[in-house]
């Protein structure tokens, strides 16, 4: 009897104790875990070690592609033609464009102002940019110019300026031997990745690639089959000879020089500006597809909002406008 009782009690005790222990443990499960400190320490050590490893790896790493390229004198030059005009965001646009271009080796920036004479803003910006540049200017005739209230698609922009750049290039090429070089028309409000410049560098005639955020679509671009451009993927007027955006192609300098009459036609219909130049230079079959057979987006047709300066206008009427000597 006694033995039995003892066992029963022991058993009961043991059962109760383990149950209590379990409850305690279960309560702990939902609680704040003070593991953050250990983790942070672990993370930090790991990152530190990774850093050291990276540094050591760098010591043995070969020079970068771009370092190799800028030292190579036989690397084709990229002539980037940017038409520009005075407006509030001009300095900002040119600044951030110049910061992108500054990374590209063997690049020559041709900035053409829509202006009867060069402006100090652009002149000074170019002087400190660190880039190799040419500063041109040609005013758009008054009747061809967009007025304040006009929608942006009403009249083509940058036509005279791009043509002027080509004139300068032909002049320069006549004076010196025509090296292998490529011409790219880069508007000042688009966004360019560094890769697009390397894609276009070895253009033989005209190379093409897709452009993001244009034509009312996520992107527009050539369709490539068997390494050749067969048609263009575009949502707007696909029957154009070259339904491609200004930022989506580059022309070899040799081709520009070989066709002295080739230019952008101001009287071309809307959307046909690019075709007006390209149809005199190349056929669709001859186009060189880039950007991984035109499957990667390396340039975007971004547009910058016009800043709202209503308060400025009110202040100016009251004679209390901001200091115009401060360049914006």
């Amino acid at each position, binding site marked *: 009897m006694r033995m039995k009782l003892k066992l029963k009690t022991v058993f009961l005790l043991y*059962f109760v104790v*383990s149950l209590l222990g379990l409850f305690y443990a279960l309560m702990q499960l939902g609680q*704040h875990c003070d593991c953050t400190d250990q983790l942070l320490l672990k993370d930090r050590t790991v990152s530190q070690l990774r850093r050291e490893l*990276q540094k050591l790896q760098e010591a043995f790493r070969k020079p970068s592609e771009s370092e190799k390229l800028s030292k190579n004198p036989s690397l084709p030059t990229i002539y980037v033609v940017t038409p520009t005009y005075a407006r509030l965001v001009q300095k900002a646009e040119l600044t951030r464009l110049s910061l992108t271009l500054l990374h590209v080796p063997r690049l020559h920036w041709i900035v053409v102002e829509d202006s009867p004479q060069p402006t100090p803003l652009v002149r000074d910006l170019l002087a400190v940019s660190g880039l190799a540049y040419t500063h041109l200017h040609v005013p758009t005739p008054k009747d061809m110019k967009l007025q304040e209230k006009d929608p942006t698609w009403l009249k083509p922009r940058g036509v005279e300026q791009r043509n002027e750049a080509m004139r300068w290039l032909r002049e320069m090429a006549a004076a010196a031997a025509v090296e292998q070089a490529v011409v790219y028309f880069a508007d000042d409000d688009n966004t360019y990745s560094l890769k697009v410049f390397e894609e276009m560098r070895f253009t033989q005639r005209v190379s093409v690639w897709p452009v993001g955020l244009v034509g*009312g679509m996520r992107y527009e671009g050539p369709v490539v089959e068997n390494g050749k451009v067969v048609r263009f993927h575009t949502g707007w007027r696909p029957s154009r000879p070259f339904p491609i955006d200004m930022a989506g192609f580059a022309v070899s300098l040799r081709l520009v020089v070989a066709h002295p009459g080739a230019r952008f036609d101001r009287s071309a219909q809307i959307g046909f500006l690019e075709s007006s130049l390209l149809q005199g230079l190349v056929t669709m079959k001859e186009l060189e597809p880039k950007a991984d057979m035109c499957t990667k987006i390396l340039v975007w047709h971004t547009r910058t909002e016009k800043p709202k300066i209503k308060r400025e206008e009110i202040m100016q009427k009251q004679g209390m406008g*901001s200091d115009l000597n401060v360049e914006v």
Partner: protein
Amino acid sequence: MPKRRDILAIVLIVLPWTLLITVWHQSAIAPLLAIRKDDGPEGRQDSGTAGDSKEYCSPDKDIVEVVRTEYVYTRPPPWSDVLPTIHVITPTYSRPVQKAELTRLANTFLHVPNLHWILVEDSQRRTPLVSRLLRETGLNYTHLNVETPRNYKLRGDTRDPRIPRGTMQRNLALRWLRETFSPNSSQPGIVYFADDDNTYSLELFEEMRSTRKVSVWPVAFVGGLRYESPKVNAAGKVYGWKTVFDPHRPFAIDMAGFAINLRLILFKPQAYFKLRGVKGGYQESSLLRELVTLNDLEPKAANCTKILVWHTRTEKPVLVNEGKKGFTDPNVEI
């Protein structure tokens, strides 16, 4: 009957031990799961935020690999041991122009020595687009994310409109800085809030590098003006704000118009951007008033007479031709 009893007894003996062992096992791997998400709702410092602010060890059965922030100290630009590090905090969110904006921002940052980019996504988890972009730039970066809670009471997809955009993301970055750097460390740093659609000159970063407490400068295209600027007196002290929109705010300045010394951030760990109840234009003040007084501000950019940063905004692209089903290949990343 005795047989049943025996079986019952054995079960009752074994059960608690099994459960105990399971619990012990869980607690051994729980620390690894404790910080599964980098976000964690910002609850502690800000008042009135809904949601649980505790981090807890989730008792998940499967062991999830925890990928936290990554330090990637790869070159360009060359790292100097002497220059203070500029920690640039950029909140970002998915939209068609995101990749373009971040690309040209990265192209700017690649010129600045000792720059550490803290990119905070407004998302549930870090997106592949941003992860890949950051990796390929070669910049020194930290990739974080926290999702601004949606207010389901309004329309399904709107974020809580009472929380100004980017606030939770900037606060997360501040918290990360406080968790990563100790106030006693001698690593000098400057904190700058750079939105992904503004335009920055290189000179700006060199101006802010010498910040002792909080430095300020003019910003173009804000407040309905060509530029807004602090007012600086002959003694080189800031005494007011040259703005039209509410110039009597404690700090009538745009997010892009000031930089804070990291030490100040670390010494005042309670200072964050206020999440709710902030009037338009008072966001910056909600942080700065906890850190500094008007008298302590250091004017830069030639005593606030030069424009080194522009509050540009990018147009929303018109994607009419995509139609309802989408015309372009969605696998092509833009």
